[in-house]
């Protein structure tokens, strides 16, 4: 066999091995195995007065506590929810929206995230 053909096969085999390896690790940023220390809280409808919110869980914690505060002081609702790693859940609390700053505070372990809407005119 032509030794130059051997070089071509060798090069292609190395490139193949390299690229298969790089493909295998490229989606790690989406993988719970490599990315397990955070979660996100967001309003389901950011533009309306509704307070429905979503918790997306990328952490190893699965138990979340949430509370709704008016003007950051008056607790008007609260609850607990379990969300598996890599999943998300939309919550629709039954609260009367007042003419105040309405804050959703979500906590798990020692970490807390907040979102809010200013309802004042």
């Amino acid at each position: 066999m032509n030794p130059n053909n051997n070089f071509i096969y060798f090069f292609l085999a190395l490139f193949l091995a390299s690229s298969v390896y790089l493909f295998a690790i490229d989606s790690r940023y989406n993988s719970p195995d490599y990315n397990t220390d955070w979660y996100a809280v967001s309003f389901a409808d950011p533009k309306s007065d509704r307070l429905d919110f979503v918790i997306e869980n990328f952490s190893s914690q699965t138990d979340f506590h949430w509370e709704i505060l008016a003007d950051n002081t008056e607790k008007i609702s609260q609850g607990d929810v379990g969300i598996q790693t890599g999943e998300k859940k939309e919550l629709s609390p039954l609260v009367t929206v007042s003419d105040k700053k309405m804050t959703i505070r979500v906590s798990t372990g020692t970490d807390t995230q907040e979102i809010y809407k200013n309802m004042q005119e």
Partner: protein
Amino acid sequence: MLEAITSQILFYAALAFAFFLPGYALLLAIFGKSKALNALERFILSFGLGIVSVDFLNFSLAGLGLPITRLSLSASIALLVSACLIIHKIRSKKAGLESGMAEEKLFDFSRHQTVLIFLLVFLTIFIKTAYLSDTVFPTATDMGHHMYWTQWMIDNHRLPDYDQMPDFIIGEQIPFGTIGLLSGASVFSAFPVITLLLVNLLGILTVFILALRIFKRKNIAILVLLFLGVLYAVASPQAKFVSGGVVGNIMGNLLMPLAFYFYYRSMEFFETGFAAEKSSRAFLALAIFTTFGLFYTHHLTAFILLFIFAMIAAVFFTANFKDWKKLLPALSRLVISPQVLATFFAGLVFFFLIFTPNYVKNSAVNTAVGAPSKETRVGLTMENLRSSIGEARIALGLLGIIILIAGFKKRNFGHSIILAWAVMIFLMSTQPHLLFINLPSNRIGNYLSYPIAILSAYSLYALFGTDKRSKTSERLASSGNLIRAGFIVVLTFVLVDGISDSASAFKDKTDLAPVAQTFDASSYLAQKTSSNDMILKDHNYITADSWMKIFLMRGYKYPLSRGYFKRYEDETKPREMCTLQMIASPDNAEARACFAETGTDFIMVNPRYDSAQFRKLKNFDQTYSSPGINIYYRNN
């Protein structure tokens, strides 16, 4: 799992079908199975020629008004390959084409040389892969910009017009768009980095065969693999540029050596006389074809190539001044031939009538020529060059220039190419005012490592090598301890400097959470907003923010971006201040006017740096929160 395997098989099939096959078929149509090209050369050259061929196929589809889809691309590539195979079939029936060339011995490597080549290629790929394993994720700003237009091409089935911006050139997107369309691979996968890695590797191999052809010394070519492939394998413009998505430079460093290879082969006959060989005109036609491909791919590389051409011509004609009466007729017989003129005029027709690059329409040349306008454009110092090219390589490379001049073979067109390539880029990057160049000097300096690597190999060989390949060790042994010790010292210095440069470039393990947070927030905004909303994001403190526009696909300049702070202070390039004001002081009068003018209603920032100013304002709601991203909505 099955989906991932299928996706990868499709990716490799697309690479082979779109890049290797058209180039290989083209070479087969032109040269048949003649010995003008070795099998290894055919493999290496096929890739670059395939990229240029696919560029022109895309232009043809666009010129005919056909949508660029998986079907149309596959059909046009199949048509080109079939046409080439038919031409090959017809031509192979004619006697002479297959047997007219002498048996090529240049590629008969000894067993030791073969083992060394395999080892060097292994190390090259291994080091680059190790570096890329921590940087393959979709985070690089430049890659994000390029992938936006790639996605645009995939979504819209036509070539992007870049909103008339001159900074993007079509040849930078077509290879990615073609692979994306043919294989269905996502721009968020590793496929752009892997494609660019392949371009980078084939560029190095192109320089390998170029050096082999010009110097006709196998050991010099092998040393080129050491200096360009293994040593400084990570530093710019190598693996760092691959992961950073510096597409133009990586592609330029494939196409420029490829063009030099073909130009050299077309002029190779001067080494033995003044009668062009049968293949000379074909090589010149391919050189012109590749040059047009380069002009369609990267304006900076093309600009540099023009300067190098000027110096090559000056060096070659000055060196051969006494023979000009024989030289000019020989050159005119070479140039005035059907295949050369047809390629040249076809290229011009494409360039000016079918698909003209934006940088030509927008006269980008005017901004590149003139007195240097900034401190970053006044030229690199030797210290700059030493750190960017590597101490050992620049020392041996500069020595190589002297040795090449001392042993200059005036009839060897390759000597003129190598000398002009190195000297012109050296001048352009260190003394731009002499040539009236107004471009960032470090961007030009990044091109210097290629010719300097060749010259380093040449000088190391000239110092310690021998013309009789099998007696290298004997010569070293018989030349006394001084030479042997000198060789060991120089080689150790080179290896330590080159490898330690790569070692220092390795990152700590990448924290992937910030990337995931940016993408999650981008996905949220893509779902919850429409093109009636205007989003402003921060580029300073958000990871992978340039990839956000691919989630939204609402225009290249959407969303608005607060750029690096220093850019707002650049007196030579005044810019709008709204993107700065709207995040820094959202409640001051200027910012309020900016909000009214731009219609900005969503702001995405890193809460560690930009949060307090929004929290105290009643007209902002915080609608999204994660450790790395907060999104604020302007509610009135």
